[in-house]
């Protein structure tokens, strides 16, 4: 093992690999921070370059972009309430209130530390338990996935401020938006109203960009200037004192475990992991009363989990050759192009490359934290010095361009604009927006697994309760719903 490790260190320590890692991480952070763009855009951007590079430098470039882009989404989420990627949507819930309070620099510190911890935790998981976790993932069929998605939906209750009915209603609207377009089993087009562009469904990114970024611009424009929404400039980057970190160790570990586990399951993704983690921490944290109002636990929960997905998602990719999401699918394709065949035999036949991947992932996470702490945090925080009307106008442009950039079509821009207008009206009527995004993230997966489950069980609904794994998730869902209901009834007896 030691010999292989030394060989791997030698491979990664080459100037070409190190430059690729730095360039990839910087590019990833920038792409992630721009609203609408994300890991997929970042990875596909650098794809042509990887083909001309060696195995390890190519992998280093990809992993740098992957880690950087997942983290980068949190920067715009914290500073301007605009998640760069759907995976950072949950970060807005507490990150932006911290910025409004003048603690944007501190929020960036928590997000960076949390991302670093989540990333490293998932690498350790990947190193120790990749084959075993891959085997566990294989035990998840459509019914087990359906149960997991039902469980994930419970986070709607957690993020619903004010009226629970309004939060759940918004969740249902999100679920419905997810069904527009082709049926996941038959391919029949639903609810397209004869509009050709709707036949492919409503894109998640335009809706996220519109519902968060544009609605924030419209909402602030609509408010009378009371100073309540004015951003307090807090320039720089700041880590909280060590005592604060130690106080929150359970939040870190729990969120990293959730992120790594969800990441292992193909097709779930970082956004789902972030929302499940946020929901769990909101239920269990001793500081849960402050969550949603600028509590660091919220930032930690979301950012630790979404970065822990990066290592987790590589488990089925490397150990089974099954890509978990579009990003790992592109990475898998690149590895195959480079002459590497991911699968159970990879760990036996090309262990030096596997170790090199672990080291690259580790270095990418460390680099990401160092870059943000030294240069990035200071640079990004200066955004808040821009006068608010100019900043809001530029956010509008970036949000719309981000929506356009996904598929290079104007229809997505119009979807983003419509989502922004509808969201600002709903916010005025005090409907929470996050549940709608959760519904849209989880909805397509939920429906697909539900329909598949019905097919394999010959339309027997009772079959959903025969799987032990599924039953565990159903019981957990029931317990969490009961707990949330009791907690709310105690808080507001009327």
């Amino acid at each position, binding site marked *: 093992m030691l010999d292989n490790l030394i060989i791997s260190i030698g491979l990664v320590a080459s100037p070409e690999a190190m430059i690729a890692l730095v360039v990839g991480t910087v590019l990833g952070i920038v792409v992630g921070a721009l609203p609408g763009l994300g890991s997929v855009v970042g990875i596909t951007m650098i794809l042509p370059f990887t083909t001309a590079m060696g195995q390890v430098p190519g992998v280093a470039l990809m992993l740098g972009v992957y880690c950087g882009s997942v983290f980068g989404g949190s920067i715009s989420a914290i500073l301007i309430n605009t998640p760069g990627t759907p995976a950072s949507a949950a970060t807005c819930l507490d990150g932006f209130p911290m910025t409004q309070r003048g603690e944007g620099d501190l929020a960036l510190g928590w997000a960076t530390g949390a991302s670093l911890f989540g990333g490293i935790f998932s690498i350790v998981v990947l190193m120790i338990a990749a084959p075993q976790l891959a085997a566990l993932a294989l035990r998840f069929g459509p019914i087990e996935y359906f149960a997991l998605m039902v469980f994930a939906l419970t986070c709607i209750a957690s993020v619903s401020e004010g009226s629970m009915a309004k939060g759940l209603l918004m969740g249902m609207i999100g679920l419905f938006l997810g069904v527009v377009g082709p049926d996941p089993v038959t391919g029949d087009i639903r609810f397209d109203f004869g509009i050709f562009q709707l036949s492919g469904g409503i894109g998640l990114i335009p809706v996220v960009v519109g519902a968060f970024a544009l609605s924030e611009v419209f909402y602030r424009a609509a408010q009378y200037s009371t100073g309540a929404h004015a951003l307090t400039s807090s320039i720089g980057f700041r880590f909280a004192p060590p005592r604060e970190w130690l106080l929150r160790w359970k939040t870190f570990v729990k969120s990293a475990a959730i992120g790594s586990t969800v990441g292992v399951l193909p097709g779930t993704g970082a956004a789902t992991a972030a929302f499940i983690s946020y929901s769990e921490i909101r239920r269990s944290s001793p500081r849960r009363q402050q969550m949603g109002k600028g509590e660091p636990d919220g930032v930690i929960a979301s950012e630790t989990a979404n970065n822990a997905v990066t290592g987790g998602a590589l488990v089925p990719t490397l150990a089974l050759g099954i890509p978990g999401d579009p990003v790992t699918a592109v990475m898998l394709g690149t590895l195959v192009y480079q002459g590497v065949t991911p699968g159970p035999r990879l760990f036996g036949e090309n262990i030096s490359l596997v170790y090199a991947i672990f080291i690259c992932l580790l270095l990418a996470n460390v680099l990401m934290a160092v870059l943000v702490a030294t240069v990035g945090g200071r640079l990004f925080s200066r955004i808040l010095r821009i006068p608010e009307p100019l900043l809001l106008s530029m956010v509008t442009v970036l949000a719309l*361009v981000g929506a356009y950039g996904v598929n290079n079509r104007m229809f997505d821009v119009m979807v983003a604009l419509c989502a922004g207008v509808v969201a600002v009206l709903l916010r005025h009527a005090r409907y929470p927006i996050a549940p709608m995004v959760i519904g849209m993230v989880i909805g397509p997966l939920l429906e697909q697994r539900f329909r598949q489950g019905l097919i394999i069980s010959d339309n027997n609904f009772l079959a959903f309760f025969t799987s032990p794994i599924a039953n565990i998730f159903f019981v957990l869902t029931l317990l969490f719903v009961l707990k949330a209901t009791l907690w709310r009834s105690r808080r507001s007896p009327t």
Partner: protein
Amino acid sequence: MRRHMLDILSALVIVAAIAVMAWQSHIATFFSSGPGLAHDPVFYPRVVLAVAALLATAVIVQSVRGLRQSEQADPVRWGVLGGVIAATGVYVGLLVPFGYIVATAVFLVPSALVLGYRRWLPLLLVTIIFPLASWYVFVRIIGIPLPTGELFGPG
């Protein structure tokens, strides 16, 4: 307007939208079928719509109950809101014919003015620098093609 009245109105709009979607699910015809497909493509959406209708009704009932002691809804600058939305709509409309750089430069001035910005020199600088710099980042560095403008020939 009172807050609870706003809740009732918004929930009624949502109920109306649900009714339109439910009607659409009934008039749509689906030809494909396959083994084990006892439930058609609108079975799951109908379940979601039914739950949404129940929740919207719950919002209405809650609001009717609280109508008497309802507080006033937050005041809104409808004129400014309408102005910003209109400016954004016009910007979206200008993107294809005029291209990203021109449309963005044209959009930034009225948008910032509607939002209350009155310092002309910084606004002028932003109007010139931001569209060019962001175009360079998106097109040259990231490789995302932005609209070049139909009026200026094929891009």
